[in-house]
């Protein structure tokens, strides 16, 4: 059996750590979370020479072992805890060839922990262009370590790196810097108190500084008992340590690292000037955003249609192939509808992450974050909140996950809480159908009222997010240090492999994370809508058949039969058939349509008397002041699972055999309020519904993600209650004014 070793990838952000990880592991990788916390954990397997297998862990990016964020503390905890099953046998410290000095700070710290370490100098392909030359043998001698010069972009040096990892036993464990010289007296005391412990490890445990998240810090708490210095004294010592390390690094690099400034080109500075310009910067960002959204909606349309078609065919196939019965119905109407409801969003999510990943890979996203910080700060948000707010227009789930990059806990929490206000793609079908029903035809400045309403709803979402952020900033009494440090990485052409992996990972995370919850809820909703305890439910067939034989079909069914029959007749006439054949075909079609109409009426009646129907009736008094009837009440109630369920529920309630919006629209337009005798969907109830959907927290999956990201039920509960109450009040005011 081959030997397996743990290899940790550690390095500063933007050094190409993930690229090295991808090169080493290929597709043998998985993404999860560190136990108990929401920091992403990427691990994979790499086969090394001489039959050695490496379990590779991609640790979160960190500038040093003096942590300031949750992500960084995870990396440090793993390096400190020898008993952790992932504790590395060897650490690969990835550094960027252009920022070697800064990267070596981390390297010397890891070396001082006596963990066998290899310095991986990445982006070697840029050396010639940037006029950089490195004396590798001399640098290896000075650092007492092995170095791999690699270019993940060109795939160079990876085999040499694998050789070095396989040969990990020969790596030196000698420390680089003697930290005790910064305060000999203090370190002497420590040594005497804990003679068996490694002194630098103790020092790191004492000085950990993660101030914004209740993480598992037992290690640190235990060690803090022997801290005899105040926080500020420890900080000063940390600074002394950093200076000491840089003195050591400067001395080495003076002899080994040369940059020919004349050879370096100033393209980056020029581009930065334009992209972070006070006017052009915003303009360019706005144009890029417009392009992205246009592309997301435009390009997603075709795959979404294909997925829709596929699930429609699959449903038909299941109904035709499996023996008729309740379980077949569950698979066709519950399971397949549930899976379809998840899978249909894959194209939009994949495209969104494709663009975000491209912007990140090129280095542009850091410029956007820098640019937006000055705008967002007065609202209690950070420049880094822009990415989640933008992602939220596709789906709040990945958007909430994207807040992980925000170091400040208060800013991160506020971003998580307000992101669901942005108009996500699941709201779109609801908006489209209601707008089509209640907004009149007409134009304003060349834009139709309907298009303007849709645009206003998007703006309303952003305004609600920003205003709520401002209010939360004042209300939330969370103490956290607010600082904004961002590195502007070099511009580079995106590596398609990295982009591909990101898109794949994020999409998988959506489908298998939120998807399971949506599927489970769909199954329960199907059950509640397909079962009932009353005689009305159990005898629906005979009741409706009797009613149809006595009173005929309902007005809607009659119109449905008539319209379809006329269309069919016209198509037969156009095809040039003989009149007698046409007559026969029409008669066959008529009986088919009558059968369908009867089934639809039975389904509608059953739904009304199902568990779900009773639930709808029960909530009718609550939704009536908003201008809704029990049917809309059910749709609103079910869409608390996911907003897009609204259209599907209405399609079932209104007895439509398929869920084409135009058909549902006609049926909804024909609905009459039994009290006022006016159309149920009028301007007042329509606007009320639009506003309700704009503000209400109707997404179980988002709540689940918020719970996961905040490690508590407190915040998702607050979000659900606050947003739903706010939505209710706004919708109530709108209806009462407009009715």
């Amino acid at each position, binding site marked *: 059996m081959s030997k397996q070793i743990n290899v940790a990838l550690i390095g500063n952000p933007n050094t190409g750590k993930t690229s090295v990880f991808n090169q080493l592991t290929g597709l043998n990788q998985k993404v999860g979370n560190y136990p108990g916390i929401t920091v992403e954990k990427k691990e994979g397997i790499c086969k090394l020479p001489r039959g050695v297998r490496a379990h590779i862990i991609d640790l979160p990016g960190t500038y040093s072992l003096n942590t300031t964020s949750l992500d960084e503390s995870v990396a440090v905890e793993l390096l*400190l805890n020898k008993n*952790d099953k992932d504790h590395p046998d060897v650490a690969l410290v990835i550094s960027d060839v252009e920022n070697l000095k800064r990267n070596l700070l981390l390297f010397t710290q890891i070396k001082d922990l006596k963990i066998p370490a290899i310095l991986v100098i990445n982006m070697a392909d840029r050396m010639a262009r940037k006029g950089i030359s490195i004396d590798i043998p001399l640098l290896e001698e000075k650092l007492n370590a092995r170095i791999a010069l690699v270019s993940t972009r060109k795939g160079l040096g990876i085999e040499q790196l694998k050789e070095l990892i396989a040969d990990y036993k020969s790596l030196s464990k000698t420390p680089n810097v003697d930290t005790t010289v910064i305060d000999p007296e203090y370190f002497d005391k420590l040594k005497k108190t804990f003679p068996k412990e490694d002194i630098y490890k103790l020092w790191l*445990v004492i000085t950990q500084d993660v101030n914004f998240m209740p993480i598992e810090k037992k290690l640190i708490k235990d*060690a803090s008992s022997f801290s005899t210095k105040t926080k500020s004294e420890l900080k000063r010592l940390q600074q002394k340590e950093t200076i000491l390390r840089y003195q050591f690094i400067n001395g080495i690099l003076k002899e080994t690292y040369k940059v020919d400034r004349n050879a370096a080109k100033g393209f980056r500075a020029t581009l930065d000037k334009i992209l972070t310009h006070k006017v052009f910067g915003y303009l360019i960002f706005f144009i890029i955003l417009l392009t992205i959204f246009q592309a997301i909606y435009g390009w997603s349309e075709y795959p979404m249609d294909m997925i829709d078609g596929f699930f429609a065919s699959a449903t038909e196939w299941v109904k035709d192939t499996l023996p008729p019965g*309740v379980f077949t119905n*569950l698979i066709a109407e519950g399971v397949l509808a549930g899976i379809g409801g998840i899978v249909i969003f894959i194209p939009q999510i994949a495209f969104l992450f494709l663009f975000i990943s491209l912007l990140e890979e090129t280095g542009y996203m850091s410029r956007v974050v820098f640019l937006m910080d000055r705008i967002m700060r007065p609202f209690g948000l950070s420049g880094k909140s822009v990415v989640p707010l933008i992602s939220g227009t596709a789906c709040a789930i990945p958007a909430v996950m994207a807040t992980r990059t925000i170091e400040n806990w208060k800013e991160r929490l506020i971003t998580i809480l307000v992101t669901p206000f942005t108009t996500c793609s699941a709201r779109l079908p609801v908006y489209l159908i209601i707008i089509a029903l209640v907004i009149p035809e007409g134009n304003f400045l060349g834009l139709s009222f309907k298009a303007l309403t849709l645009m206003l709803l998007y703006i309303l979402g952003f305004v609600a997010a920003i205003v709520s952020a401002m209010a939360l900033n004042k209300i939330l009494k969370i103490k956290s240090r607010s600082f904004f440090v961002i590195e502007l990485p070099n511009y580079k052409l995106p590596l398609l492999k990295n982009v591909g992996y990101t898109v794949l990972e994020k999409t998988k995370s959506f489908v298998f994370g939120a998807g399971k919850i949506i599927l*489970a809820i769909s199954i329960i909703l199907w059950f509640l809508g397909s079962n009932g305890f009353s005689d009305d439910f159990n005898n629906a067939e005979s009741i409706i058949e009797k009613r149809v034989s006595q009173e005929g079909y309902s007005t809607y069914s009659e119109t449905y039969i008539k319209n379809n029959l006329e269309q069919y007749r016209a198509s037969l006439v156009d095809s040039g058939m003989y009149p007698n054949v046409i007559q026969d075909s029409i008669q066959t079609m008529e009986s088919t349509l009558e059968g369908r109409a009867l089934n639809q009426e039975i389904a509608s009646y059953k739904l009304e008397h199902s568990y779900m129907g009773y639930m709808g009736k029960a909530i009718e008094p609550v939704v009536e002041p908003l201008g809704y009837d029990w049917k809309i009440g059910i749709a609103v109630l079910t869409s608390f699972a996911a907003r897009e369920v609204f259209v599907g529920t209405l399609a079932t309630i209104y007895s439509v055999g398929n869920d084409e919006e135009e058909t549902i629209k006609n049926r909804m337009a024909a609905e009459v309020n039994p009290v006022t005798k006016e159309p149920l969907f009028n301007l007042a109830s329509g606007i009320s519904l639009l506003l309700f959907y704009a503000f209400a927290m109707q997404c179980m999956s988002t709540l689940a993600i918020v719970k996961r990201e905040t490690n508590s039920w407190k915040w998702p509960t607050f979000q659900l209650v606050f947003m739903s109450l706010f939505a209710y009040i706004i919708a109530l005011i709108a209806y009462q004014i407009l009715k």
Partner: protein
Amino acid sequence: MEIVQHILVYITLLISVGYLAYKFVLPKRLFSVGKKSSKACGQDDCGCH
């Protein structure tokens, strides 16, 4: 055959309800009995004691 279909529906429903309960209601520690946390420090040479 119909009874089998009904049984399958109830099994699926139970799995769905159970899954949601497992995900959102039941405390996670109920499912971690006997599992040793990867962060547990069993020895005294890890630097945390």
